[in-house]
């Protein structure tokens, strides 16, 4: 079942911290969707994924909500 993390309304560093925590519950190869309103999360989520070996499959914005699709690395 796809997992979604709602980090809307939270500023740096909480979207990244909560993403890291949520990914612990996701099996390798599976995906996590993260919703956030912090504009800083766009670059931060890219940096987080690059650094931790997780893959940022999609990154988009709709109506002020940023949506990230992350595939957990091995």
């Amino acid at each position, binding site marked *: 079942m796809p997992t979604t993390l709602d980090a809307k309304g939270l*500023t740096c560093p909480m979207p990244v*911290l909560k993403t890291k*925590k949520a990914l612990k519950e996701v099996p390798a190869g599976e995906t996590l969707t993260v919703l956030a309103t912090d504009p800083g999360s766009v670059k931060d989520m890219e940096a987080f994924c690059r650094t931790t070996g997780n893959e940022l499959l999609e990154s988009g914005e709709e109506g002020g909500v940023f949506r990230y699709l992350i595939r957990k690395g091995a």
Partner: protein
Amino acid sequence: MTADSNAKRMTVIVTKGTLDWAYPPFILATTAAALEVEVSMFFTFYGLQLLKKDLGHLQVSTLGNPAMEMPLAGMHLKMPNMVSALPGVDAACTTMMKNLIRKKGVPSIPELREAAIEADVTLMGCQMTMDLFEWTPADMIDGVEVGGAATYMERALKADINLFI
């Protein structure tokens, strides 16, 4: 922090004990931990305040802080040094800051400290500071490793990033 791990390491020396200056070390420590960096924080002098059980006493000060401007009714309220001498100004600024923090979704310092503990960040207290200000481990949260400069340096020498905040 284990000596045989291949993870990157970071140390942060935390020297300031005001509500505003508590943010940079805890934000960087928790984020580094989320990026799988092994983090040690060394709390010394006023920074040691951030290890006290209750953090309700943390304040911001207008003194020596000419950059402080509080957003108020669409404008920015300057806080000249002079007003810091008035009774209640720092307390009022602290209340304003805490309200802003809540309103904007910025995490509180207790919340960030809890996140650091949860992420296995090593919290080290400066023995000399504790002796100097007559604090005991009973004043501090559990799990604090107390040590001196050499204890810090041993970690710093093995770390990839060392920050002084």
